[in-house]
């Protein structure tokens, strides 16, 4: 996932307040949607577990290209949907801030970016599986790569618009630095897309019912696997 790995003090107060307010709006909308749809104990537990896996996974260093950290936010969107996923994004960012992985003041901006990844990931995957009937690997990879490429641009946009405090560079002068940031995030996005494609294929073989949220219809194969799981009680 893209993450603005900036600590507190990087953005000035008005921008911090703006991104935080926007993020609060997204969270409020998610809570409203969940309340309307009915928040069950299962949904709560699922969202909490997805957040804990997302956070734990982000602490793992994957030995590819010198070391990568992935958060699987588009995957979380595919598994739990955009409303619950946005809450997961907030939880992951708060835990991150608590251990110095991003600033407390950056939670707003980071939650916005991650919520965007979750929403784009979810709807792209749904579109590809539902309308275009592509396979799980292709859908997972494409949806994730698309979501993360867009979010890489958004991250750069947020940083350019907000500016880094005490920097005297104009937006144009900062563009080379931002270009490097965008490129790095896009490359990570492609890699995370591949990883997500493999993961979604794996989940689809083992527990296809977990992909119900984002897949248009349940297949017969899915029902049979669920039956096999239920029979073992």
């Amino acid at each position, binding site marked *: 996932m893209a993450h603005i*790995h900036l600590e507190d003090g990087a953005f000035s107060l008005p921008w911090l307040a703006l991104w935080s307010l926007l993020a609060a709006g997204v969270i409020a909308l998610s809570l409203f949607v969940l309340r309307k749809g009915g928040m069950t104990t299962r949904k709560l537990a699922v*969202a*909490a*577990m*997805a957040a*804990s896996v997302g956070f734990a996974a982000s602490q793992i260093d994957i030995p590819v290209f010198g070391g990568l950290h992935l958060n699987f936010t588009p995957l979380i969107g595919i598994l739990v949907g955009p409303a619950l996923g946005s809450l997961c994004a907030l939880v992951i960012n708060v835990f991150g801030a*608590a251990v110095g992985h991003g600033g407390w003041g950056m939670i707003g901006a980071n939650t916005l970016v991650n919520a965007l990844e979750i929403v784009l990931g979810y709807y792209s995957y749904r579109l590809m599986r539902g309308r275009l009937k592509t396979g799980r690997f292709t859908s997972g990879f494409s949806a994730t790569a698309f979501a993360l490429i867009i979010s890489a641009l958004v991250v750069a946009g947020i940083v350019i618009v907000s500016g880094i405090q005490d920097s005297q560079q104009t937006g144009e*002068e900062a563009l080379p630095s931002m270009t490097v940031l965008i490129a790095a995030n896009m490359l990570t996005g492609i890699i995370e897309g591949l990883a*997500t494609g493999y993961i979604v294929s*794996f989940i689809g073989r083992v527990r296809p019912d977990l992909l119900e949220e984002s897949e248009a219809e349940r297949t017969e194969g899915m029902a049979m696997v669920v039956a096999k799981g239920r029979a073992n009680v």
Partner: protein
Amino acid sequence: MVHRINPWTKGVLLIFTVGLATVLTDIWILLFLLALSIAFYAAARLPLGVLIGWWTLPVVFVVTLTVMFMFTEPGEQLLTFDVFGKRISITDNGIMLVVKLLVRALAVVTVSLTLFMTTRYTHIAHMAFRTLPGTLANMFILSYRFMFETSDEISDVLDAMHSRSGSLARGFSRQTKIFAGIFGLSFVHAFERAERIAKAMEARGFAGQFPRTERVPLPSYGGCALIALAAVAFAIATYSRYFAGGPLGW
């Protein structure tokens, strides 16, 4: 002493620390803020070695992301060198930018660590329930609780992979597949655990809200005085930054 400070007081102090780190621009005042935060940490008799360890992450983040600014920030050139025929320079403003960002980050991380290392989890849970919507607070409680299990499980699977020489697997595609399998398994197990947890919660009468097992009283007069002091400092800093003149953003 810090352990006995009211959790609400510590929480509010963290918020004001974030605010001050955001608003202050003078390096000496920022260094003073950092010194205060370290003193706060030390007053809690917490190990300094642990603090240095926790500082690694924010230092890495700040340096790796703003290192380019050291070269592109306008100012007096301190060091110049050739890279592939191109002349690049480290400027004084570039270094000052990175230093200020570091100082801000470390001040906040120090206070944040002090808060979490000196406050009981049940108090943090109570504060979460008082300040956040119920659904969010429930999510934080459950996520935190099961982070240990999830981290251990991922560690165990990674160990299993290493024990079968999985780390020797060469190639981008192979490595990605291996780790995708590990994370995929973790997600599946997490969902299955979620289903069991949901049943167990319902079996014990859960009705949508985690019951609070401890109450946290409001801050004492001393705590209120500390909060007031921090608020005044923040107000002064904000006023002098934004109303007495000063740029916003770039």
